[in-house]
């Protein structure tokens, strides 16, 4: 792929398109790349081609461009040769001279001036027309037909052409126009070659003749207009009025004008004019037109490259700072234990010898007892602002069954588990009922998911003494 200049080729376009199908990178990588080549940020095409070069290794399958370029290259070469040959043969045909009658220059001028100008005009229409109109004019491009023909035939190249390589219509059109100029240039070269060859190897008498009523002076003005571009630098290539007058002929049966025959030695002077007309109209103008079409082709290539699916994202990623808000390392979780063999009691007794409240004040415990109509012997507050020794003393002082109020919405912390283990280790305690209470505002009603958290925690302790009350 080219990277030194912005000149694009169909190969770099196709390779880039294929790469985008296979790989587009991500914002972080693409931004990093753009920062590495910051000096290119005003030149997106160059940046894209450089990106493609750096990521070309992602194209593990064969390049579509190879088959395509081989196909189009062969087709163009074949046509180029045919056009050169046709040009030469056309030249020979137009300049064929038997000695019976002069070669009519009007035929030759038609192919050396009118046909090239017409063909350039068609190309111009094709360039700047769109849709159906452009399609109509493209019918006059020989490559268009060759493409149709090849895509119809059951060749491998057909598959390559129609399935893998889908060129945008506009690009195909400009590619064909550009190639047509090159090929046409060869046709004209063939024509000039034929003219020079015939002039060198034969002594030709040129003349002009037409059914239309045109006088020699009118024809002279017409010829002078054609020769306007070189009359100052090469006056000998501009036919004089006298030459025009003596080279006009009228055919009547097999007889030629006697004046024409008398001046036959001067009639060869036309060749310089014919050569210059061919060089200027069919070669120089065509060459200029080719430069123009090449420039247009480059513009379209660039435009189509920038229109490829994924390019706008790529350019945006080049120019936009990469912002990340996500974690840099993975997450570690405790395995969630499923509920099974839970020690759950769905009612609360009406009387307990010991009632404890984890993170509840004594008043709050009494309020809860009252609300739940539970009678008790002793009530104590644990956790909260108690010290460990206070909690330890409380845990040791309890015997038989204990009801332990907890705030259902507060999940059990390890601080709570430490206290619960003290209770479990107390051999005087045979049963511990943990009663998760909701807020007073909700009349102590708890959410099922909160109860579930407590159940799972208690299950994890694997103690037969501990039960959860879920009423």
């Amino acid at each position, binding site marked *: 792929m080219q990277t030194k200049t912005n000149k694009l080729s169909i190969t770099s376009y196709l390779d880039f398109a294929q790469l985008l199908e296979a790989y587009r990178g991500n914002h972080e990588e693409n931004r990093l790349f753009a920062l590495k080549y910051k000096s290119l940020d005003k030149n997106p095409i160059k940046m894209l081609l450089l990106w493609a070069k750096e990521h070309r290794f992602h194209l593990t399958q064969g390049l579509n461009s190879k088959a395509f370029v081989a196909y189009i290259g062969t087709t163009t070469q074949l046509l180029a040769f045919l056009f050169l040959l046709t040009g030469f043969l056309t030249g020979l045909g137009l300049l064929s001279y038997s000695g019976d009658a002069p070669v009519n220059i009007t035929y030759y001028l038609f192919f050396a001036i009118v046909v090239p100008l017409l063909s350039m005009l068609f190309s111009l229409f094709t360039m700047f027309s769109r849709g159906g109109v452009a399609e109509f004019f493209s019918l006059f491009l020989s490559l268009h037909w060759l493409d149709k023909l090849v895509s119809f035939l059951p060749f491998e190249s057909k598959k390559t052409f129609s399935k893998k390589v889908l060129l945008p219509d506009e690009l195909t059109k400009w590619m064909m126009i550009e190639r047509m100029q090159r090929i046409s240039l060869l046709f004209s070269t063939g024509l000039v070659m034929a003219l020079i060859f015939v002039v060198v190897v034969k002594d030709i008498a040129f003349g002009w003749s*037409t059914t239309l009523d045109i006088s020699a002076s009118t024809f002279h003005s017409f010829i002078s207009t054609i020769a306007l571009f070189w009359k100052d630098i090469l006056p000998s290539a501009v036919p004089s009025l006298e030459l025009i007058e003596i080279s006009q002929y009228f055919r009547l049966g097999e007889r030629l004008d006697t004046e024409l025959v008398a001046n036959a030695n001067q009639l060869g002077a036309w060749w310089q004019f014919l050569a210059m007309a061919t060089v200027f109209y069919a070669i120089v103008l065509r060459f200029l037109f080719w430069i123009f079409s090449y420039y247009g082709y480059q513009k379209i290539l660039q435009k189509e490259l920038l229109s490829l699916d994924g390019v706008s994202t790529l350019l945006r990623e080049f120019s936009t700072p990469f*912002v990340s808000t*996500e974690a840099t390392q993975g997450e570690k979780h405790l395995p969630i234990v499923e509920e099974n063999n839970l020690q759950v009691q769905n009612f609360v007794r009406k009387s307990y010898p010991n009632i404890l409240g984890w993170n509840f004040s004594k008043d709050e415990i009494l309020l809860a007892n009252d609300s739940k109509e539970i009678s008790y012997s002793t009530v104590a507050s644990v956790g*909260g602002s108690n010290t460990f020794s206070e909690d330890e003393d409380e845990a040791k002082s309890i015997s038989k069954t204990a009801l332990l109020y907890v705030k259902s919405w507060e*999940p*059990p912390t390890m*601080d709570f588990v430490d206290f619960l283990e003290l209770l479990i280790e107390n051999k005087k305690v045979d049963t511990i009922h943990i009663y998760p209470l909701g807020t007073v505002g909700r009349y102590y009603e708890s959410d099922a998911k909160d109860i579930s*958290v407590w159940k799972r925690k208690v299950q994890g302790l694997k103690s037969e003494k501990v039960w959860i009350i879920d009423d």
Partner: protein
Amino acid sequence: MIDIVNDEYNYPKFAVVGHPNKGKSSIVSSLALDDSVQIGDTPGTTQVKRGFPLTVDGKVIYELFDTPGFQRARRILSWLKEQEPVSADKRPSVVARFIDEHREDKRYLDEIELLEPIINGAGIIYVVDASKPYGPEYEVEMEILRWTGQPSMAILNLIGNEDYRDEWKMALGQYFRLVRTFNPLKATFSDHMGLLESMAQLKEEWTVSIKVAIGVLNNLHQQKVEQSVDAIVSNIQSTLSYVYTQEIKAEKATKEEQDRAKEKYRQEIMAQEKKMEKEIEFIWNHRSIEKVDNLVIFEDIGLFSKESASIFGLSENELIITGASAGAVGGLSIDAAFGGGTLFLASIVGGIVGGVGAMVGFGNLYEVKILGKNLGKRELTVGPMKNLNFPYILLGRSLYHASVVAKRSHALREDIELEDEEFFTEQIVDSDTRKKLEKLHVKLRKGDEPSSEMIEEYHKIVLQSFLRLLR
């Protein structure tokens, strides 16, 4: 020994800390725009601290830490208080010593994980559930945090339906410089920015970085809006101009062929819509959204199929034009051979013969085989969509989906359920907007390529509708 202030990392850091299961991870998920953070009802979901840096092109602007909840806060405070009494300015060193001395103590793994970033200079964001009543047991945690000496703020997260914010504010105000309400599940983009503004006030040295972060996130938001509109417009373009083509054998398609073609067409339209939705979810960093399928309904939208025939890939009209052109060019060469004496009669006759020949021959050329292949091809096509209302249904659905995704908090884990079609069309695309959009729809229905100006104009209108929905 831990450095209390680490100069190497001088960007602002914030540790989100609190009691277990109070929504710390939800807040981090929402602020970090990362829906991959595990959020669960089970306490202790977060086992190790995780950093969520906001980086721009690799440069960290600030970093959030998600931390495990306090488990044995009372024991730590007790240890801190048991140490030799120190003045307030030395207290952070005591906390640092606690971390150093208990690094291998499994009982304090969670506390070490949460205290370490704070002692390394992170600001404190203390999270409580203000939908539950305040309890004095929280004071132990707040006291430990006060010992660290770091700037701090408290967030009131309303997980449930009750509201105890007033009592929480009274208590938290005594420990924290700022107290703010932030519900990560309902937080909008402006809530997010508001919280960052508050964080900027915690320490003078952090203000600039946080202001930069606000700017970066605002730009990022704007880019996401633009990218979403790009995706929507691009989907509208490809959907409205989509044509399904299927080869058929007979002159007329069978009912089965028509039904099959229509079904394929529908499937492709739906697949394109799903692809666009995924793209929009990706843009907004929602990688794990589950949607309740609400597929575009085609019952009321008539789909029409059409048979067509071609030879060499040319339709009948194209072939007639081609035939006429070829005849005219052939005739022209005859005219040229006669030096124009035929007054272009040959061209006219050639054109007529070619055109009429192509017209008459078109019907008989299908069966002609070359190299075992038919010259002609018969096809059944469905699309582009002619229904005038369909683009608005599609646009309405797309805009609605995009707005739901854009506004969705990254802390949410529930499925998305979208409204029905009528809602999308009537609420989102009003009649004025319809008129403006219709120009492009007409173009796409015809199969013409719209100009970039037209697409830009369309993009602007869709952007305005989208911004309206985001308000």
